[in-house]
C-alpha cells in the first residue's frame, strides 16, 4: 500500500513534467514546493509555473482522482453484488450519463454555460441509478440479481434513447461520440475539487464498512446472522458508489475498464479483504488512468480517446494475469 502511494506520487510528478514543454521532475517539485514556501521560488520560470499550476496539474489530478474513484467504485460494486464481473456502470450510471450528455449536446443546451453537458450527464446518471434502485426495491434486501437485472433493463431503454438521439443528431453525432469516449483535456481546479470531495467520502465510507463487505460475501442470510445490517449497508454503499461514479463520468466522460480491471488485479495481488482491497484499488486506479492519460497527451503524436487507451493498455495485461492464474491453479 505504501509502495502504491509512492508510485502514485511519482507518476503525478513525472506526468506533470511531460508535455509540449518538457520539465524535469526536480523543476516540477520546486514549483510545487514554491506554493508552500517562498524559499523554493527563486529562479523559477513564471511561464513554466503557469503551465504547471493552471494547465497541467488540474488535468493530472483530475485524471488520477477519476481513476481512483472508478476503481474504488468498481471494487464496492463487486463486493455488494457478490459478482467479480460487476463494474461501476452495472447500475446504469454510464447509460444515464450518456443519455443526459447526448440530450444536452443535441439540443445545444447552454443555459448553464460550459457546465451544461456535465450537469446533464450527472442528472442523467442519478436518474438512471434511482430508477434502477426503485425497480429493485420491491425486493427489500436489494438482492444482487434484482439489482443487476434492473440495471440491464434501464440501460437497455436508455441505449435505445441514445441511439435515437444519435440518429437525429446527423452531423453532430461525432460530438456525442467524442464526449462518450472520455477526455481530460482542459480540466480545471473546480473539477479537481469536485472529484476529490466525492472520492474522499467514498473512501471513508468504504473503510468504515470494509469488514461488513467481507462478511457480506458469505451471502445475505449468513451476513445478517453475523450481525451485519446487510440491506442497509448495501443501500448506503450503492448510493455512495453510484454518486462518485456519476461525478467521475460527468467530469471525464465514460471511461470503461478501470473499474473492472483494477479491483481484479488488486485482488490477485493483495487478496479479497475489502479493507485493503478498496484503498489499494483507489491508488492503483489513479496510477493507471493517469499513466494512460499522460501517454495519450504527451507521448502519442495525436491524442487518443482515453477510454480507448485504458482498454488497450489494461486488456492485454489483464489477459496475462488471468492466464497465469489459470495455469498456476493455486
Amino acid at each position, binding site marked *: 500500500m505504501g509502495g502504491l502511494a509512492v508510485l502514485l506520487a511519482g507518476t503525478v510528478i513525472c506526468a506533470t513534467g511531460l508535455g509540449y514543454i518538457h520539465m524535469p521532475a526536480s523543476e516540477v517539485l520546486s514549483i510545487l514546493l514554491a506554493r508552500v514556501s517562498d524559499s523554493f521560488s527563486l529562479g523559477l520560470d513564471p511561464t513554466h509555473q503557469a503551465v504547471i499550476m493552471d494547465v497541467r496539474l488540474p488535468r493530472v489530478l483530475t485524471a488520477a482522482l477519476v481513476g481512483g474513484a472508478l476503481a474504488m467504485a468498481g471494487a464496492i460494486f463487486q463486493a455488494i453484488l457478490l*459478482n*467479480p464481473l460487476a463494474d461501476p456502470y452495472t447500475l446504469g450510471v454510464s447509460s444515464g450519463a450518456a443519455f443526459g450528455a447526448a440530450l444536452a449536446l443535441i439540443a445545444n443546451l447552454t443555459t448553464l454555460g460550459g457546465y451544461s453537458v456535465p450537469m446533464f450527464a450527472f442528472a442523467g446518471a442519478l436518474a438512471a441509478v434511482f430508477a434502477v434502485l426503485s425497480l429493485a426495491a420491491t425486493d427489500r434486501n436489494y438482492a444482487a440479481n434484482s439489482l443487476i437485472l434492473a440495471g440491464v433493463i434501464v440501460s437497455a431503454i436508455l441505449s435505445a434513447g441514445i441511439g435515437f438521439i444519435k440518429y437525429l443528431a446527423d452531423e453532430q453525432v461525432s460530438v456525442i461520440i467524442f464526449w462518450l469516449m472520455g477526455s481530460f483535456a482542459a480540466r480545471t481546479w473546480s473539477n479537481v475539487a469536485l472529484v476529490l470531495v466525492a472520492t474522499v467520502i467514498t473512501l471513508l465510507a468504504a473503510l468504515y464498512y470494509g469488514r461488513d463487505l467481507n462478511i457480506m460475501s*458469505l451471502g445475505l*442470510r449468513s451476513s*445478517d446472522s*453475523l*450481525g451485519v445490517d446487510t440491506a442497509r449497508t448495501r443501500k448506503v454503499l450503492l448510493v455512495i458508489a453510484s454518486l462518485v461514479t456519476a461525478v467521475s463520468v460527468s467530469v471525464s466522460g465514460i471511461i470503461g475498464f478501470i473499474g473492472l480491471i483494477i479491483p481484479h488485479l488488486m*485482488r490477485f495481488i493483495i487478496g479479497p479483504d475489502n479493507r485493503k482491497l478498496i484503498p489499494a484499488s483507489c491508488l492503483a486506479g489513479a496510477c493507471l488512468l493517469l499513466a494512460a492519460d499522460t501517454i495519450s497527451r504527451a507521448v502519442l503524436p495525436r491524442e487518443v480517446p482515453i477510454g480507448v487507451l485504458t482498454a488497450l493498455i489494461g486488456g492485454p495485461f489483464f489477459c496475462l494475469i488471468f492466464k497465469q492464474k489459470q495455469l498456476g491453479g*493455486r
Partner: protein
Amino acid sequence: MTQLFAIKNLTAGYGARDVLHDLSFSLDAGLFYGLIGPNGSGKTTLLDLMLGNLKPKLGAICFNDRLVGQYTRRELAREIALVPQDFRINFDFTVLDVVMMGRHPHIPRFANPTARDREIVDRVLTELEITDLQDRLITHLSGGEKQRVIVARALAQDTPVLVLDEATSNLDIQHSLSIFQVLKKRCRGQGATIIAAIHDLNFAAAYCDAIILLNQGRLLTIGPPREVLSADLLHQVFAIECQAYEEPFSGAHQVAYRY
C-alpha cells in the same frame, strides 16, 4: 429448565403469501431440537423468524423473554449463529479468514482480532479437523470441506444457540456424522441449544431430544422422537408407509421405510 424461545399465535410469510399459520410453542435452553416437515412446510421461514431475518405478521416470537425484533442485529448475532444450507462464495478468502468472520459480532469496528478470538478459532478448527485446511482458499475446497468450514464459522461465533438449516443434506455420511457429533458435544458439554432443520428422519431420531413437526405451515406436534416419529404421524404428513422401532445397533429410535 429455562425457556429460550416463546412463540405465540405466530403468523408469517413473504409478501402476500402466509407460510406459517398461528404457531404456538416454546423451546427450552440446552436441548437438541430437530425441525422436520415436508418441503414447503415452513421450516426455513420459522428459522428466519428466530434469526430476526423476518418479522411476524401476527403474534409474537420472544427470545429470552424479549421480542426478537427488539434486539439489534449485533446483539442477536452474539446469541444465535446460523449454518445455512448452501453456501457460495465468489471471492478467494482463506479458510482461516472465513472462520474468523464468525468472530465479527464480538470484534468492535476498526479493531483487530484479539488473542482470545484466535484461540477460539484455533479450537474450532481442531474440533472440526480442518486445521490442515486453514490456509487453503475457500473457493478451492470440495463440498464436504466447505460445509465443515461453514459449521466452524458458526461455532466460532460462540453463541449459546446454534441454528442449522439442513446443514448436512448435501454431505457424505461420514461428514454428516462428524458434524452431528460436534453439535451433540456442544449441546451436552457446553449447554448450547441446537435447533436444526433435518431432512433425514433417522438422524433426527438419533440426535434430537425433541422434534418439531411442521406440516403446511402449521405445528402438528412437538415432543420426544419416540412420540413424534410414529408410523401414523409420518404417514399422515409424508404419505409414506413406514415402521418405527428401537434399533439395537444404534440404540436409537429409528424409522424403516417400505421401498
